[in-house]
């Protein structure tokens, strides 16, 4: 996935909408902040999720963080490769390291999320 085409949540998830399926992952910035990822806890297929809800956890040596869904819908796919190799998310956060796919309502958009430019502004101010 090309980061320029994605949309971003304040909580560092990225989203890509194709038809009515939204792929969700974590940004490189978030993954770099976490470092040393040891476990990713993902939900079950068909679980419903609301925008802003936690759908799982990502655990590093030092801490555990929630993963938040930027959209509302039903989970249609979960990246099972991350169960055995959580480091995929560090090596390829916008590609092989995707987290979940969510089936959204027809006509739903990602307009409520940030563009790359807006997201980059946010992380620049976070880093001060």
């Amino acid at each position, binding site marked *: 996935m090309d980061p320029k085409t994605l949309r971003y949540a304040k909580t560092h998830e990225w989203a890509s909408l194709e038809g009515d399926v939204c792929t969700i992952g974590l940004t490189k910035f978030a993954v770099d902040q976490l*470092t*040393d990822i*040891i*476990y990713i*806890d993902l939900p079950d297929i068909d679980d419903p999720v609301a925008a802003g809800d936690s759908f799982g*956890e990502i*655990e590093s*040596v*030092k801490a*555990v963080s929630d993963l938040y869904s930027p959209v509302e819908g039903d989970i249609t796919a979960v990246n099972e490769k991350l169960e055995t190799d959580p480091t995929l998310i560090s090596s390829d956060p916008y590609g092989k390291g995707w987290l979940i796919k969510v089936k959204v309502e027809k006509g739903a958009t990602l307009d409520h999320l940030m563009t790359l430019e807006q997201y980059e502004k946010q992380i620049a101010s976070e880093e001060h």
Partner: protein
Amino acid sequence: MALRTPLYDWHVQYGGRMVEFGGWDMPVQYASIVEEHQAVRQAAGLFDISHMGRLSFSGADSLALIQQVYSNNAAAMKDGQVRYGLICNERGGIRDDVLVYRWPYGWAMVVNASNRDKIVGWLNQHKKDRAVEIADQTMTTCMLAVQGPQALQLCRGLTEADAEQLAYYHATPTRYRGKGCVISRTGYTGEDGIEIMASAVQAMELWEELVRRGAKPCGLGARDTLRLEAAMPLYGHELSEEIDPFQAGLAWAVKMDKGDFIGRDALLRRREDATLPRRVGLELAGRRAAREGSAVLRDGRNIGRVTSGTVTPTVNKAIALAYVEPAFTAAGTVCTVDVRGKIEEAHVAPLPFYRRPKS
């Protein structure tokens, strides 16, 4: 405001993620905790441990004061020896775990950063009008640790005295670039290595020389994963004012026969108390780490609590230290751990989780 070691600027400049620990701003990691941990297990890692308290004792009553507050037997130590022990309160609970150094001309003690003021106060309270001068040298000195299978070799020629000649848990005063320092064959990683106490003015040049020689800077994150694998207790987790040395598995550091010391009476009773929870190692079946505070369960009943835990790089499993009811301390005992609402299978594992290969 938190204190800063003489190396603070270096840590920040080289990407150290600073957090407050025991009243000091310390680097948790530079790039990766896992990489730093592996460097110590495979080569040599470098730690700034200047935040730890360094106290010196001089005067004819130094030994008497130390013997009064310390659980191990300082009188049996030879010059140049370093010995681990506990400082206990009157209830037998642990006020701090410390290293005592014996010199021909006096004594030194290294204490945890978080307990420095507490222990200095405790020593002054019990000194009364005896002939002993206690000096807190923390702010005018630095302390670095070089740890790993290549540590000793990497330190060849660093100081006048040869660290390789030092026996384990022995120390010697020597010189680094003309100034007095102390090197000891001690550490908190489970690897061979040394710890160096030097003047604060030399901290930067000593650190930079060790980096040039190939020691990899490591932060507190790796320090924690290394000591956990070696099953070394951490004050505030496995040790506290409410936990006694016998519960903590540190009976070897308590010499009841050496004479009276603060807490001895209480410890005589506590040693015989078969109801007190005891420290064990746990190995979890899955990859989710147990963390401090996680409940340990058996047949749906709470039997204990985790005090430290994570997935560590060398052992590569979710491991933890915990206190459990004495009936459940045997290696192999099956239990479960409540990790943030999900029940994970676990069992009691023998300690340490990691032992360095014999060379």
